[in-house]
């Protein structure tokens, strides 16, 4: 295509959700391709397949951009008309256009044509990346604060709770407790004072969902909390966020101020008799403070340590009062449930897990980033379709979900539809949404050790199983990676791990052994190799590898020059030699050799 007479370009998004496939979206795709070829315009139209677009009852659904024209109940016979009239003639086929205006649609007007985004469904992150988070006008213009207005106009607190219950929303912090039930318990308590808390104490290594959500769209969290306050009868909200997120805090502070000025927060909201205000409390960054009872202690000014439950915070929470605690992502769902309706929300997701989940996709994957997909999407779709597969053509080995409380899932689980139950069944957890992709170059024992180091370090020390148990497990893991593993170590890890899970006081201890137990379950042979053969197949455990120069050596001397300890000897143009007694296994010779003459064993 010549640059001068550039044709108008289109992107056609075709829903590739299960319902649409069932209704014939595959045939439609080939139909479109045929038509484009027939007219010789394949070059200027890009077809992308999206994940479920949440319009299943109107499927198959097809969206034409620019213009964001949504066609519903499209059949193969309609394709020629759409191509000729819309793509070539510039006129939409009005009899097929459906009027669907959900809050999440706006994101796709901007980003829908990018494969990475087009396959996602952005409900909680609907405004992230398309509005100025520091300008309340931007939020209001996209139906911001309409949900709380609707609630105050037409709904009694009990009706709001019913709506949230009916939506099937479950806590996005990790445990997946039904949100509506939590609200109902808190509402049912009689008390002069109640509290609403937003848990923004995001601490998993590699997770940044909550930070991005707050930095990109702080008002949606605030609006969700106001609705929560109205539903349970509270007038005081607290956002507990770690001090390590200065920009998120700054934007929240501005958002709260702007919201107050507009009469959305404070006394007599919207002129009603409902009053509610929010303050921010900063956490010092202890992982355990993400646990709700520890978080409450921290706000009260005590040391952040958990206590046994029951009583649950909904009965006896902050300062002994009934307290409703939800995670950032959970709160961000609330305005959508109110405006688009619980009936609509229920359609997204699986039978037991409704709506979407945000994941922070990281590790050895081509496209790293934030991914929000309907529950029920498979790991393969996230890692390969959205994430673009493994970097540098390496082989997929495992995916770690749920952060330090989660587990590593090998290839056989790639086609597992993700929801709370299926991940738990596979030996991992949903957690708050960390997702780290691991390729063949990573040692599974090393990964387990990394996460355990983190939880061991973050253990508050209150209960013995967690404090002592994680320490002992870490000692065993360390000796295995150093080549000092003993027969029976794996069994010891399993016994200890199961004991810690059963006997620990809070979620931190109860889940800390998961990375170790799941890697033993799925990669036991790697543990055995480390212990029996003193070998690390990924070549990551330094103590277990050694370097040798093979016959390909031409005697260039590059390795000798780079060796920091003088372990390499040899004369120019003659094969060199590594003195294993001197070698510190830094690997610099291996990196520098251009002839593949150094073996890592």
């Amino acid at each position, binding site marked *: 295509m010549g640059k001068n007479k550039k044709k108008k370009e289109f992107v056609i998004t075709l829903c590739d959700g299960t319902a649409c496939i069932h209704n014939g979206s595959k045939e439609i795709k080939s139909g479109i391709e045929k038509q484009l070829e027939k007219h010789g315009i394949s070059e200027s139209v890009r077809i992308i397949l999206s994940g479920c677009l949440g319009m299943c009852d109107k499927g198959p659904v097809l969206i034409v951009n620019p213009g964001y024209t949504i066609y519903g109940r499209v059949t193969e016979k309609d394709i020629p008309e759409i191509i000729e009239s819309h793509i070539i003639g510039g006129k939409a086929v009005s009899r097929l256009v459906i009027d669907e205006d959900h809050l999440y649609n706006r994101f796709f007007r901007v980003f829908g044509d990018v494969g990475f985004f087009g396959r996602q469904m952005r409900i909680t992150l609907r405004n992230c990346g398309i509005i100025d988070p520091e300008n309340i006008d931007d939020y209001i213009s996209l139906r911001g604060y309409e949900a709380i207005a*609707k609630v105050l106009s037409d709904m009694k607190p009990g009706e709001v709770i019913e709506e949230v219950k009916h939506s099937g929303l479950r806590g996005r912090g990790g445990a997946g407790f039904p949100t509506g039930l939590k609200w109902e318990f808190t509402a049912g308590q009689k008390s002069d004072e109640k509290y609403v808390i937003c848990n923004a104490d995001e601490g998993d290594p590699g997770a940044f969902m909550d930070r991005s959500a707050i930095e990109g769209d702080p008002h949606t969290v605030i609006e969700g909390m106001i609705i929560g306050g109205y539903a349970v009868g509270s007038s005081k909200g607290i956002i507990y966020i770690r001090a390590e*997120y200065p920009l998120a805090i700054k934007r929240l502070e501005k958002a709260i101020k702007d919201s107050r000025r507009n009469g959305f927060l404070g006394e007599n909201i*919207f002129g009603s008799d409902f009053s509610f205000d929010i303050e921010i409390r900063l956490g010092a960054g202890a992982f355990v403070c993400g646990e709700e009872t520890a978080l409450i202690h921290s706000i009260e000014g005590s040391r952040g340590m958990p206590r046994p439950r029951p009583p649950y915070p909904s009965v006896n929470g902050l300062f002994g009062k009934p307290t409703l605690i939800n995670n950032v992502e959970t709160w961000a769902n609330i305005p959508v449930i109110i405006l688009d309706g619980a009936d609509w929300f229920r359609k997204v997701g699986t039978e037991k897990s409704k709506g979407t989940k945000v994941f922070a996709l990281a590790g050895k994957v081509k496209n790293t980033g934030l991914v929000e997909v309907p529950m029920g999407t498979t790991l393969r779709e996230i890692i390969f379709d959205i994430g673009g597969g493994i970097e540098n053509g390496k082989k997929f080995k495992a995916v770690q979900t749920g952060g330090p409380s989660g587990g590593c899932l090998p290839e056989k689980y790639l086609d597992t539809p993700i929801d709370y139950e299926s991940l738990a069944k596979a030996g991992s957890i949903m957690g708050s949404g960390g997702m780290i992709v691991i390729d063949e170059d990573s040692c599974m024992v090393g990964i387990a050790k990394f996460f355990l180091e983190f939880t061991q370090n973050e253990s508050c020390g209150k209960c013995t199983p967690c404090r002592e148990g994680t320490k002992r497990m870490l000692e065993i893991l360390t000796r295995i990676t150093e080549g000092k593993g003993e027969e029976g170590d794996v069994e010891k890890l399993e016994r200890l791990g199961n004991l810690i899970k059963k006997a620990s006081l809070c979620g931190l201890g109860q889940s800390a052994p998961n990375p170790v137990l799941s890697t033993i379950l799925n990669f036991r042979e790697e543990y055995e190799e480390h212990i029996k053969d003193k070998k690390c197949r990924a070549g990551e455990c330094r103590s277990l590898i050694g370097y040798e120069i093979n016959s390909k050596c031409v005697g260039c001397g590059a390795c000798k020059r780079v060796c920091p300890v003088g372990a390499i000897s040899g004369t120019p143009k003659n094969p060199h030699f590594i003195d294993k007694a001197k070698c510190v296994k830094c690997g610099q010779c291996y990196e520098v050799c251009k002839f593949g003459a150094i073996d890592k064993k």
Partner: protein
Amino acid sequence: MVKPLDIIRKKRAEAINRIVGKGYLSTKRVYVGMATCEIAAGSKKVMEVFKEAVNKGLTDVYLSQKGCAGRCNLEPTVEVIEEGKIPVKYGKINEERAREIIEKHLKGGKTIEEWIIK
């Protein structure tokens, strides 16, 4: 009592008015990613380049910051949105590339294909 829904409708109209007053209806809207991750990748300097251009007389452009859309390894990101066209999303933008976007795309009307996120 005025219904809260009526109040918010009025407020929305006012908000849209204010945004329009800031030049939202310009031919091109430019959004620069300004979340912690984007800033760490260098987006503050990119924003400065666009701000300077606007201050020095670049017209018919609405400049705004935005949060992170979540395309981590391609940050900083910049979007150029024109009505009736597919929004252009640029990735890995530095100061130099920002200047080029201003010259070629904003002033010249030509997109720079090789930086577009697809």
